[in-house]
């Protein structure tokens, strides 16, 4: 997917942390654009506010600031999806330590007729609802099998 440029809002330094702040209407394009950005310096964050939550990138990779409320509304999910590949361990650790309420992983759509994959935020040690950007179906992803020792 081609990443359309998000709108730049401002740059801010808060408590020694530097933020490049953007806005974008489309979350998938945002994630694609963030994937093109590389951050090496600690305490440097690029954030994009979208209608489906705030996404960002830092030296550890892409993250989602907060899960969306409906992502814990399990009643929505008709399918069971799964994690595709290995998520960034830094994100999982933060989630396990409750510093963040999610970690970002690549997930696949539970609808067998779709099978799309995309990146999304997931709860640590529980089930999370994700919605396929392509077929719009809700799937539940269980992360109980991911344990930080």
């Amino acid at each position, binding site marked *: 997917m081609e990443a359309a440029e998000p709108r730049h809002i401002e740059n801010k330094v808060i408590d020694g942390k530097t933020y490049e702040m953007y806005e974008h209407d489309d979350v998938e394009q945002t994630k694609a654009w963030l994937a093109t950005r590389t951050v090496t310096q600690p305490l440097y964050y690029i954030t994009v506010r979208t209608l489906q939550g705030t996404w960002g990138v830092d030296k550890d990779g892409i993250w989602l600031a*907060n899960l*969306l*409320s*409906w992502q*814990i*509304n399990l009643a*929505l999910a008709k399918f069971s999806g799964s994690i595709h590949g290995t998520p960034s361990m830094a994100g999982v650790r933060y989630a396990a330590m409750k510093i963040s309420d999610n970690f970002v992983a690549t997930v696949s759509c539970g609808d067998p007729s779709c099978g799309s994959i995309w990146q999304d935020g997931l*709860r640590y040690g*529980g089930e999370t609802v994700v919605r396929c950007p392509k077929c719009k179906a809700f799937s539940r992803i269980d992360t109980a099998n991911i344990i930080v020792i």
Partner: protein
Amino acid sequence: MRSVSALTTLPQRRQIRIFISSTFDDMAEERDELAKFVFPRMRKLCNERGISWASVDLRWGIPEEDVRKGAVLSVCLDEIDRCRPYFIGILGERYGTLLKDVGSECPDHVWIEGAGGVSITEAEILHGVLNNPEMADNAFFYFRDPAYINSLPSETQERFREAPGTLASQKLADLKTRIRHSGFKLVDGYADPRAFGRMVERDLLSLLDQLFQQVDTQDPNAQVKAEHEAFASILSEIHIGRRAEIEYLDGHMTGSAPPLLFMGPAGIGKSALLARWALGRPQCNITGELMVMHFVGATIDSTDWCVMVKRIMREVSAYFKITRELPNEPDALRAAFFSFLDIAALRGRIVLLIDGIDALDDKEGALDLAWLPTSLPENIRIVLTAASGRPLQAAKERNWLTIELSPLTIPERRQFVIEYLAARRKKLADGIVDIIAQAQQCANPRFLLSLLTELLVVGKHRELSKQVLEYLSVQSISELFYKILNRYEADYSRDRKYLARDALCLLACSRYGLTEPELLDLLGESNNPLPNAYWAPLYLALEGEVVNRSGLISLSSDSFKDAVCKLWLPCAETEMEYRKEITTYFRLRGTDNRAVAEVPWQLMKLSCWDDLVEILQNPDFLKLAWDTCRLDIQRYWVEVEANTGIKIRSAYDHVLTHPADNLVISWPVLELLSVSGYLHEALVLCQFLGEHAQEQNDGANFIVTTENKAMLLSELGQFEEALAVHLGLERTFREKGARNLVAGQLNHRGCILRKQGKHQEALAVHREQELMAQEDGSSQLLTEALSNQVAALVAMCKYQEARSIIPRAITEAKAAGDLEAVNIIYSHEGVMLIKEGKHEESLPFLAKDEAFCRKTGDRRRLIITLGNKAMVFAKLDRFEEASMCFDEALSLEEAAGYTTIIPSTLINQGLFFNQMQKYQAAIECFARAERLSRELGLFEELQAALANQATSLHREGKLAESLKLREEEIDFCRKHGFANDFVKALFTCSELLYDLRRYDDAQKLAREAYQEANLRGMEEIACSLRKRWLFDIA
């Protein structure tokens, strides 16, 4: 019809001043009988009826030689004129001292020139009665039985009768025959002085009943009105010229221009212009117009804006038949007056003439014209006068018309001199008139008037030019007054040292002036009043500088009073001495209306706080004072509490602990404690009075105390108890079938339920009130019922339903003439729009509400509106405007001490800080609001404080603390039926749990909130939850 008929036939002044005429030596016992026994009783009786009593006996208390000096005849005749129409003539068997060469002595009484050879007594009788048949009803003659003389020792009998066959005995017989045939009231042959005393007392009592009893039962406002009109009448006599201003006034009455204010220095003629114009206004073709004149300072209490406004309202109410309550509380009175003017204007034209507004007491913004609306209906025509100061500034800020009175022109001065002297049968040579008219000082009418009055007294024909030039050597009115005062001192201290100084200083130090007997008592020695004969010449000379208002003599102008004070009261100690004399005199005299008016006021001026407290604790005094001048009592207590450690509560501790022993003052103390904010103490006393009334089977007082108790409980936040009482009363009234009283109780009950946040119950109660009001056809009760329903529905977020009632509520409010209610109903719309998040749309409603509150002077509601407005501005990121609104709201609140609205202002301020992202400051505001709301039992405010505090803590990242408050809010809303807030609290709490990563709990609450929101049609929240949690999507 026009109501100024009283201007042509002025109601009687409440004063009796009676002249005693008799021969000198043989009537000493009769005069003593009157002075020592009859007149003191009459004075007391008159006092009780609010009438001023004075007797003038120029021969009592002085040696005969003083009478024989002969200088008193002109004084006698002048005094008879002043006493008209009251006269007592006593004759025995003496004719009295014969007059010789009387023509030159009494230039003002031309008739006397042809009366040579008559005695002084006959001259008095002729001048007082026989030449004036209109005295018939109020003149009394008493002839002593000649046999009385036989009972006297033989050596004294000769002094009691004229020798038979002499000219004097023939003249006496002739005089008696004429009196017998005159038809005047006559007691022919009283036995002795005691019998004489009884007969005089009987006649005077009958006169008193005939003249004043009927007036007593009439409108109490009538007398005050009469006094103002009488004052205008005095003033109008001395006005001259000002044709341009008079024409301007005529034009002003027909136009629609805003109020008009005449200004100019003291003595320039502002009051006289107003009086002359009012009394000269043609009465034909002015239908449906009411003119009310108020001269500040002309009567007791007239300097108090509350008294003035109430007086105006009473007069207008009576004329246009408008029934309105007159609140005692200043803010409420101001608001009532503003809406009253609007309503009255619909009935007809009202002309308000208020003179000397700069002399109003400086309280509650009176000098800034806070008691007058900024804009007025066309039908309200107002003319004011002021010398200087804040009223002028206020009038200019309101863009009202101000006209400065210019000094008199030379032709005007000339005309004044000629007319004034001609009215007194005097004339000056043209050359002297020119000298006076051209003197620059005489451009001030007050100066000119004082100069002419002085010339009338001291003017000697051959030295007149010299005298005029001497008076004109002074440059200012103060200097002229000093000259006059020094002349008084020199001329009138022959018989009594420092007479002028003491008399004028006593008058200057008195509160409202002194009656003539009071002044004579104070000027006398060793319990004997100063004889009239010594006082009368000075009193006559003081014409123009003192004024007699219904028996109270006071200094006629501030400039004259200033001169007296500067010349004779230069230091505080001297002034204190006079004040102490007045205080001691009235304290010894006992408790009566005059003592109540003077003593505490003097004690306050003397800073004698302990004595003042003692007086205020005195049962007889307090009871009388509370009945006659309760505002004064409140004012004294404010001063006592501010200057000493003594509190009202402790001062009346004996009443609180032993109410049964202090029943006489229990009611005044109860009211005093209530209005002064000692609610707990008031409640205790109220409880006792209720029980006492019950024991006495005093149903009326029992109901009053019960209702008072409920209101006190409600004020104290004890809503349940208050409700129980109202419910009890409601039952009683239902049983008695007193429907209007039932509706009143329903109103109280509904309002308390709303304060408790029990909106659904409140709604039901107000609906019942509505039905009752409908059946009774009472627009006022119906308006209250509908308006309260709207308020309840708004609180319940049932906006559609609230909006459906509003048009009817407004129609009823307009029908009841209750413009305040109209505005309150409109203000609900503003609140609804805020609650709906339509901030921009709410602003016009808030602005309208704000304008109305400013206009009506309703500070309580103004604070709330400003708080709402500030919050809206903050929401719209208009921080500067928001900040200004808050500053004003808080400063008003601090000044007024409105405890119960502080929480709502704090909440608004917190919201403002939130908007500014100053979360810590916001949390502090909400926490204070929470504490206060808990203390005062304000449920709605408590809910808002909890909710907003929780939100701010959440934003600050203090999630655990926020959750605690949010959970309390949910319980609170569930318990007290705050349905909509309950849904909001569930929603926000689910968010909070979500942030705490207690997802399951969050989801559970979110689902409950979603169901409740759907149930209550709270679409916005349901929609938000649907989007957020994608409920019902799957």
